[in-house]
């Protein structure tokens, strides 16, 4: 064993065996790269929402406090949510536009719960850059975003301006006739 080792080292052809040298280079580089990735992942993933932040995921709200034609803004996951008690005219306006030229086509019925058309629950973040739109502005009697002028109708659908999508309807369910759970 010792003899063959001495032989291979003293043999000029084996002493500069390129495949053995390459193997060490590749193995060392691969180990280093794997180590960098293994360390980088926790350093990046720590930026993602922490467990206590994720724990705030659901919210219950009593709708009976919202009068007809009124809108309240509540905070869900630290984001504003509109709860709008729509008037019959607003519902009719929204339905009339169902087959109009929409940038992000969606019917009004798909954005509310059946039988509960008066309740419109929306994430109050403009789909352009996240500002809170104000109700009553714009040409469609819905919302106007003060930042870059996006206009939403009474169903929260984008009608004009730079926003690409309708106002997002969060997941929610009616727990009782007047109580909802968001998230």
């Amino acid at each position, binding site marked *: 064993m010792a003899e063959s080792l001495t032989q291979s080292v003293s043999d000029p052809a084996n002493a500069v065996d390129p495949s053995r040298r390459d193997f060490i280079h590749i193995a060392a580089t691969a180990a280093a790269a794997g180590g960098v990735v293994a360390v980088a992942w926790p350093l*990046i993933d720590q*930026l*993602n*929402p*922490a467990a206590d*932040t994720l724990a705030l995921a659901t919210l219950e709200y009593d709708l009976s406090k919202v009068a007809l034609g009124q809108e309240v*803004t509540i*905070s869900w*996951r*630290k*984001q*504003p949510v509109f709860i709008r008690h729509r008037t019959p005219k607003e519902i009719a306006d929204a339905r009339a536009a169902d087959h109009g030229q929409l940038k992000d086509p969606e019917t009004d019925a798909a954005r509310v719960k059946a039988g509960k058309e008066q309740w419109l629950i929306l994430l*109050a*973040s403009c789909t*352009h*850059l*996240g*500002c*809170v739109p*104000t109700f009553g502005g714009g040409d469609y009697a819905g919302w106007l*975003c*003060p*930042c*870059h*002028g996006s206009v939403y109708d009474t169903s929260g659908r984008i009608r004009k*301006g*730079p*926003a*690409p999508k309708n106002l997002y309807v969060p997941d929610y369910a009616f727990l009782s006739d007047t109580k909802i759970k968001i998230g």
Partner: protein
Amino acid sequence: MSHPSTYEPKTGIERWLDSRLPIVRFSADILSFPTPRNLNYWYTFGGILSFCLVVQIVTGIVLAMHYDPSGTGAFLSVERGIMRDVNYGWLIRGIHANGASMFFVAVYLHILRGIYYGSYKAPREVLWLLGCVIYVLMMATAFMGYVLPWGQMSFWGAKVITNLIGALPLVGKPITTLLWGGFSVDDPTLNRFFSLHYLLPFVIAAVVALHVWALHVPGNNNPTGVNVKSDTDTVAFHPYYTVKDGFAITLFMIMFAVFVFYLPDALGKADNAIPANPLVTPAHIVPEWYLLPFYAILRAIPDKLIGVLALGGSIGMLFALPWIDRSHVKSMRYRPTARMYFFIWIVAVAFLGWCGSQEPDGKLIPGLESFNLIDYPINSVTWLSRFSALYYFGYFVIVFFLGLYEKPLPVPDSLYTPVLKPSAVAAPAE
């Protein structure tokens, strides 16, 4: 350093140190660096910018001692703690907040100087690219710093800018979540922005060191754009330009002091004196003045993704400039056509800045409400932004073709002929 060292250690201690860590030689070589003799005051902004960076780091470290980076504490620690209770806190914050604006005044003049005299051309492309990197880092640092007081403009500025990144396909949303650390801009966002705002100035300082290194390899450009040909074309950096830069820094400090002591809030927004409220957006959101032209480009485009790409592209054009401009003549002194388009470009950027500060639906001329051209309301801030943005990008196309077809004026033989023998320059043109 590219020039041969002229440092001679005189004492035994200097010789001992020089053979171990030649730091005295390094400093002496910087001071004796051969610099073109014809640099004008537009060349003092490098020194002014170094001064700005030091001011921001010193005042920033002090402010961090009194700042509380939490959603409940940030606003109070700034508006009550630093502005009212901390000894001279108002002064230190006044210098830091206005210092950001001063920094950008200087960097814009420095960049325009570089474009006018063709300082980005071979062999200074890397120098130019490093400068662009510093500029982007400055914008990131300034943005994160603006978030820290946690007022309404801080909060909504953060929301709008982080949502910009969300427009990118595939990677946009995950990156936005990483920046937020939650479902929206919130406490975790403030904490990490504070951490990064403290880090980035030191990254800037490191890139500045590379920038100065890259300057010292080819040496300074100069207003004629003509290469240095002999020792008679240069003077030592010290005392000639240390004195010139020092005088310019003094003048700059006077302007700086006027803002700090007499107009401390002139460049800020009153809405930022209201604590951040995630449920209400201010009626009119605008970024700080130095970001307005880019904001106007973003708003000029009705599509979200294209708007964001145009915003990024407007800064990307600066990076590409050394390869867009093919002209062999560096200085616009000898490129009258290019110079004209360049001045129009500055006007277009100014228009964009103004548009960025206005309401998107605003009218240019209030009396002319219904002026339409082919169904488009030309009399509006949006359309002025569009035309200006078109020229902003169009300028780079013009520069490309000018480089190929333009007839420049005769360039002087050496950088001091225009000073010593003005007739020698005019003669070949006849």
